[in-house]
């Protein structure tokens, strides 16, 4: 590990070809994610934030540039990087307990240690009583809790979260935001969290990387120094939120007004 940098991408460019049409999803993207930090990728839809997350996850390869995890080049998915998807992506044929125990590292453990780990993480996400339930018997919020527990139980060093709360109702969403901050505080795992919700980003992040669209780029990185847990009604919170709103709006404007997809 180098200088506490957990994940990094250097001059990353990602071009998608759809038939004969080229779309530059990401361009000249350079970013370091520090060990133990909570980083939000914030931007409008189509700005390449999910693409960047998928590159970190190893699901996609960059067209050019390099991504690293713990200093080593990322060349595919790895257990060091757990992913929480927008749609829970739990295995419907496994009950909650078995889903949390489905990681390869967890499965490799002796029985006693394994069930202790599952119990520990289910308790952490508040679902200790639901081990025997199947995913379809759970609400959307509960499913995402299981998905988080699944990533943690497999001892992922980094959690990559792709708008995990976007499909939830507002109330469930804010409860889960509070809980995620609590879990992060407890474990100090590195979290990269994709969102288009400014308030969500300001509530949780240590740093926010604001992205612009077409081509996707990181426009600015804003550190949020407010102590956690944060009060969304405090004047400091509102001031930061307003500043970000202006930044995102101008980024969005330049994206809309810029000539689309013409880069290179």
């Amino acid at each position, binding site marked *: 590990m180098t200088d506490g940098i957990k994940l990094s991408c250097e001059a990353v460019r990602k071009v998608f070809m759809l038939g004969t049409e080229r779309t530059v999803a990401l361009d000249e993207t350079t970013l370091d994610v520090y060990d133990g930090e909570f980083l939000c990728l914030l931007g409008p839809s189509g700005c390449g934030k999910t693409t960047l997350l998928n590159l970190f*996850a*190893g*699901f996609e390869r960059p067209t050019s540039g390099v991504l690293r995890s713990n200093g080593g080049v990322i060349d*595919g*998915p*790895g*257990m060091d*990087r*757990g*992913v929480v*998807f927008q*749609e829970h*992506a*739990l*295995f*419907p*044929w*496994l*009950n909650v307990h078995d889903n949390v125990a*489905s*990681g*390869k*590292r967890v499965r490799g453990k002796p029985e006693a240690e394994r069930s202790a780990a599952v119990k520990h993480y289910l308790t952490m996400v508040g679902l200790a009583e639901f081990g025997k339930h*199947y995913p*379809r018997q759970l609400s959307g919020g509960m499913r995402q809790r299981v998905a988080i527990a*699944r*990533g943690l139980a*497999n001892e*992922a060093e980094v959690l990559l979260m792709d708008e995990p709360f976007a499909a939830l109702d507002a109330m469930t969403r804010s409860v889960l935001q509070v809980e995620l901050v609590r879990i992060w505080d407890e474990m100090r795992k590195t979290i990269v969290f994709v969102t288009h919700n400014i308030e969500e980003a300001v509530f949780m992040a240590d740093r926010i990387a604001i992205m612009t669209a077409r081509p996707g780029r990181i426009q600015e990185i804003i550190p949020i120094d407010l102590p956690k847990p944060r009060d969304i009604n405090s004047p400091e919170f509102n001031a930061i939120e307003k500043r970000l709103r202006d930044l995102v709006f101008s980024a969005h404007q330049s994206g809309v007004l810029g000539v689309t997809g013409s880069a290179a």
Partner: protein
Amino acid sequence: MGPDTMVGSRVKQAIVPAPRVWAAVRRLTTLGWALLLPLAAAVIWQTVASLELLPAMLFPSVGTIAATSFDTLTGYSGAAEWYSGQWYVHALASTKRVLLGFAIGGALGAIAGIAVGMFERMEKIVDPSVQMLRPIPVVAWIPLAVAWFGIGNPPAIFLIALGTFFPTYLNARHGVRYVDPVLVRAAQMLGYTSGWEKFRFVILWSALPNIFTGLRIGLGIAWICVATAEMLAVKSGFGYMLWDSYNFLRIDLIITGMISIALVGFLSDQLMLLVQRAIMAWDK
């Protein structure tokens, strides 16, 4: 509003019987509904029979058919003559063929469908040929099957396997092909990165509902095939019983044979459903 509903629910609780009794009542009700149309058909049949538009030999009464059917089961009255008490012999003969042909065709169909769904190269090689063979009706294979295998079980089992193969193949292929890619990614990030691991951990389970659908359709077709094959290629089973009875113009026996195929086919589908539910516990 509050107190009223309270009283309402209390009254309801007092009336509702114990859960087990309730489940039994519900099952009987389901059975009752299912028997409604067959009973109506019997009534219409009997009405037409009473009009005597056709001689009783060609359009026997419900009573005659019931008596003949009963006799094939029990050998009680001899009304079914050489089929008296012989129902089980023919049921067993047909069932054996179906099971064997279904096992062969289902296994091959599932394996081929999975392979083609998994590997693009396999699809390019195998799929066009399968799609070309598929429109050939099973009946059209009978001359060839009999010419090659002679009269007996082998041509019948061949035809049943053939009939079972196609739906199982198509559904297994579809199930494997349309696995949710997010689930595959989830498996990858959990450490299952090799092709075999992805298959064992995600793809097979995801495709299971489709594979079962294919097998159930295949089993239904297997019963169609067994009756067809037995009319021409063997000397036992319900299909043979049908054709043999026609040669002696025993319409009551023909109907008995048809009802037998329907019932045994239905029963085998229900058994298949039980197996499916046992394996796919998460789905129900």
